[in-house]
């Protein structure tokens, strides 16, 4: 069902936890549909110097959070914004079709955290490619 990479990131998730006084926080999903992802970022000189997550969800959701946080760590905000859910899934050696939406959460949570940072710093939020009702459709 899951690739070895997914299982590795599920069993040994990277960057689990919270950041005290984060520069940005993004939370997406809702408990009703079974998946919630929360991402905290620390930003210095437009660069993500630290990132942590908490996730309520399936193996794929947890692995996606872990992989996504790994992929944006050390990146500029612009680079992090470009990370797509497909790239997260690919980095995990693929996800089952019915589980692709879990990776969407990761992309959205990052976007939300970045926009949270931008708003806090008086900047225009960037436009997310997903609308709100997209955020938890299961296949």
């Amino acid at each position, binding site marked *: 069902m*899951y690739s070895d990479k997914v*299982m590795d990131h*599920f*069993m040994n*998730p990277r960057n*689990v936890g*919270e950041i005290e006084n984060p520069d940005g926080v993004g*939370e997406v999903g809702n*408990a*009703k*549909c*079974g*998946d*919630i*992802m*929360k991402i905290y970022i620390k930003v210095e000189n437009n660069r993500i110097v630290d990132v942590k997550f*908490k*996730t*309520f*969800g*399936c*193996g*794929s*959701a*947890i692995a996606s959070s872990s992989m996504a946080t790994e992929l944006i760590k050390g990146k500029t905000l612009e680079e992090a914004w470009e990370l797509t859910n497909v790239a997260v899934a690919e980095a995990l050696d693929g996800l089952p079709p*019915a589980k692709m939406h879990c990776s969407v959460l990761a992309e959205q949570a990052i976007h939300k955290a970045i926009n949270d940072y931008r708003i806090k710093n008086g900047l225009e939020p960037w436009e997310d490619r997903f609308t709100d009702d997209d955020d938890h*459709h*299961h*296949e």
Partner: protein
Amino acid sequence: MEKRFVYMDHAATTYTKPEVLEAMMPYFTEQFGNASSIYTFGRRSKAAIEEAREKVAKALNALPDEIYFTGGGSEADNWAIKGVAFANRDKGNHIITTKIEHHAVLHTCEYLEKQGFEVTYLDVDEYGMINLEDLKKAITDKTILITIMFANNEIGTIQPIAEIGKIARERGIYFHTDAVQAVGNVNIDVKEMNIDLLSLAAHKFYGPKGVGALYIRKGVKIDNLIHGGGQERKRRAGTENLPGIVGLGKAIELATSNIEEHNRKIKSMRDRLLNGIMEKIPYTKLNGHPEKRLPGNINVSFQFIEGESLLLLLDHYGICASTGSACSSGSLDPSHVLMAIGLPHEIAHGSLRLSLGDLNKEEDVDYVLEVLPQIVQRLRDMSPLYESFIKEGGK
């Protein structure tokens, strides 16, 4: 702590017991003759099938002539419901069932709705029990069939079958019960309970997969589901699954010969496990009826976590279990059973079913009691819901 293999998913399927497999073995390569053939070699196969039929009849207090072998529990459910519906259409088009049936019943009913039948799906209470008054009220003069499961596969709740049977019989309405989870766990007497049709599947009571049976009371009007040859007294076509049927017979004999003793053993392990879980893991809820439940069934919801990830971690520790979480089903919603007993989505998501059976030992209980609390805590530590809950001072 040494890693074990702990199978606690007996409600999904059981292993075929060695005694059962042994009984089946001669019928593959040696005594393989077609039971419909008239030569001695075929008649011996026939005799083996009839012996199995008698065993099934005895287990249910039915007549051998009222037992029909099928390709499994789902086929038996489909046959019972569609067969009665189509054969009695002239009498009415209304069927009563519950919201917590297995999909083999629910999806069959939904299919019949498309064919012009009307179906009432009875609500259940928080324990998964139907209300007999609701049932009576649902009956109309168009009602031709009541189909209510004996015991639920997810939460283990056992329905008041004899009372339902009485209501149905008094009103001249056919009563079918899906007893796939009940056989071997509950005493069943189709006569006393006024059951007209009953489905069962061998692989839930230590028999082989791919074989089941439908009990059809003498006189019940029912159409065939599988048309063709004259097997099963012209009611279910297809060359008989000889080893499977022999295995079913042997398995039901073993499973029903000693229900009390078996249940005592399973129940005592189950209760120790359940009590341990409730004690060691806070924010946990038992789903299903506290007493009227299958002896091996545990269904609990752990707040703040999701079931699929829980199963994956349990699997890592060698524990086989099941969940009603949506994330595991591939559909948008969690189990319809957990919804029907009124669980909020997020609680249903954190559900875990452990179903104990003959493969379990006391050591398995110890092991799960050691592993499970750690795993739940580990997932809670990752959960944003738990985080906010704690921040808000534990509610």
